[in-house]
């Protein structure tokens, strides 16, 4: 369906990534946000708290990130699109209830404007070192979807997609911005509401007597209902059966956990989103995401001037990882070069998927700034040798 125009600030704007993310959420129909202030993400909720009262949205500043994520998980069960916003230290606290949302299969969006870590790290400066945490941060086996915007425009566009993916697959979606994108201001075009497609809550048509909250449909995603509509359903963070009742057994664990993994795995081709440039015939393919994807393109230009055939693959959706595509490319290229503002995270995934067919070369940056494109260029040239 088309979105609710009340949340859409149609026009050509000059916005930073945080504001654009907030606008994307409102344009997607998000009407509940709970959060706890943390640099460099705070502008997202400042934007939302200023605009929500005019569109029927409620923002609440909770006492901490544990509460923020719990409130979002609760709110999502009313059918209201819900989101929380944080940075590394808060992301760590949210992991508990991100796991709950994954286990209860609760659609919601978690924005992490990444700064340098670990611990308090570099509050005002860029990092991309929470990428593995986004995938593995809560305990147990589960899968989420994670995306990484490279510009304020994408912070707007992809936030809408994040809400749509959350609804489609009943998962928490990690919106992995970085401080650089969050705090850079650029042109952001917000279209008319009738150009914005949103996925509303797909409510079950079953009667309360027939409805089971975890009985699957064709694509492995159970139908949902809203709290307050008379279904009197039950849900739990415990391992559960199709009725949502706890069942402590190895057999049920196998079924339950397999399914919350499979609903992503089996739909991976629909979820994965990458952008490629000149990968055919390339000797080296650079894999990057977020702000690093932009800087990497400068490194690629420099390397091309030195005669290296370089392709580029940008991870728009970071998790699930485009395993199949990396495997294909690994058979054709000498090496992947992976610049990221951490000391080696997504490169591990590239290396795993390349499975020895091609090298995976990390171009690390500990955080606090972006790469010097010349360093990326040097890594490309070296990898092509």
């Amino acid at each position, binding site marked *: *369906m088309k*979105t*609710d125009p*009340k949340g859409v600030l149609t026009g050509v704007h000059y916005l930073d990534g945080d504001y654009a993310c907030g606008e994307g959420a409102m344009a997607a*129909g998000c*009407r*509940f946000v*709970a959060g706890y202030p943390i640099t460099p993400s705070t502008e997202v909720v400042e934007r939302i708290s200023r605009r929500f*009262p*005019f*569109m*029927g*949205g*409620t923002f*609440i500043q*909770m*006492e*901490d990130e*544990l*509460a*923020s994520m*719990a*409130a*979002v*998980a*609760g*709110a*999502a*069960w*009313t*059918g*209201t*699109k*819900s989101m929380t916003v944080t940075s590394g230290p808060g992301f760590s606290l949210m992991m*508990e*209830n991100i*796991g*709950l949302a994954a286990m*209860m299969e609760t659609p919601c969006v978690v924005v992490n404007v990444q700064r340098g870590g670990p611990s308090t790290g570099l509050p005002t400066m860029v990092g991309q070192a929470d990428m593995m945490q986004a995938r593995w941060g809560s305990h147990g086996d589960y899968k989420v979807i994670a995306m990484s915007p490279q510009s304020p425009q994408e912070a707007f566009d992809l936030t809408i997609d994040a809400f749509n993916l959350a609804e489609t697959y009943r998962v928490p979606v990690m919106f992995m911005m970085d401080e650089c994108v969050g705090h850079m201001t650029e042109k952001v075009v917000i279209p008319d509401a009738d150009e914005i497609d*949103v996925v*509303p*809550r797909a409510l079950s048509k079953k009667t309360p007597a027939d409805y089971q909250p975890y009985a699957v449909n064709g694509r492995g995603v159970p139908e949902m209902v*809203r*709290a*307050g*509509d*008379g*279904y*009197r*359903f*039950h*849900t*739990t*963070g*415990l391992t559960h059966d199709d*009725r949502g*009742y*706890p069942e402590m057994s190895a057999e049920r664990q196998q079924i339950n956990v397999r399914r919350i993994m499979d609903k992503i795995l089996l739909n991976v081709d629909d979820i994965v989103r990458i952008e490629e440039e000149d990968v055919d015939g390339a000797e080296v393919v650079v894999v990057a995401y977020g702000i690093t994807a932009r800087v990497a393109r400068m490194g690629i230009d420099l390397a091309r001037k030195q005669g290296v055939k370089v392709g580029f693959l940008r991870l728009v959706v970071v998790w699930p990882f485009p395993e199949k595509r990396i495997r294909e490319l690994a058979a054709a290229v000498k090496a992947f070069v992976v610049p990221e503002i951490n000391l080696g995270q997504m490169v591990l995934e590239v290396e795993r998927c390349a499975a020895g067919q091609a090298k995976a070369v990390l171009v690390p940056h500990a955080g606090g700034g972006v790469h010097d494109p010349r360093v990326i260029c040097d890594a490309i040239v070296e990898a092509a040798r």
Partner: protein
Amino acid sequence: MSATAHPPNPNDHPIAPYLRMDRMPHIWCPTCGIGTVVKCFATALEEADVDLDKVAITSGIGCTGRVAGYMKLDAFHTTHGRAIPFATGLKLARPELESVVFSGDGDLSGIGGNHFIHAARRNMDILVILVNNFIYGMTGGQNAPTTPISAKSSTMPFGNFERPFNLPHLAASCGASYVSRWTCLHIRRLTKCMRVALRRKGFRFIEVIAPCSTLYSRLNRLGGGLELMRFYHDNATIKHGIDTREVDIGFQDTIICGNFVDEEKPTFLEMMNAHYGKVLGDRYVPMPAEGGWLHD
């Protein structure tokens, strides 16, 4: 139906419609007090004549944390300590819901203590029923923030020396609009108290003292279920309206019960709506009662 020829059918029990009878028997030990509190709540729901379709119940983790699992309501069995913020999200995103939290002392005042005080401070529009058995039951009798001084627990085997919370005082001093305490022996009074609380607004807090005969009672040699009920009978006194500073509970000491606070004061939602209405006038669009969900 012949009542004499067959054992009674559990589904004929007056509160069966409020329970998930397909989940019976429950996990609680014989002589545990939680079941009685659930019975009181179900009765209160019936007497208060609330629309059950609009009641959502949220629990955390622990013995009392299982209550949501047995109530035939929209029910959320969440993470340890987070029932209050989860229930807050439900309420704010669909304000017509009666959002009830049902959980234990360790869950709500230990790991969830920060949420408890902030929800009370905001006078958040939720009803919180806390069953206090002075101990962490499900994990095997460890010390709780409510364990009385000198009482033994599995992690204070020589007796507890930490000062416990006075929970009604904590709730009242943070701003709760309704604060009561009963024991699970006070069935009629507790039921009435719950019924009243369902008609009140804001942060409503009911502490129910209940026995854990398996752990707390055994570790402290307090006897079986009957002895525990007799203790409540002999040692609970009712003092409505008493200053909550006076309602500390010492080990095997008097348990002061009653309705301590029952004040009409603006709730979080009322304050938010009134404030935005005043500041923004007609431009303010409140969250619809049925939630801010996208639909045709």
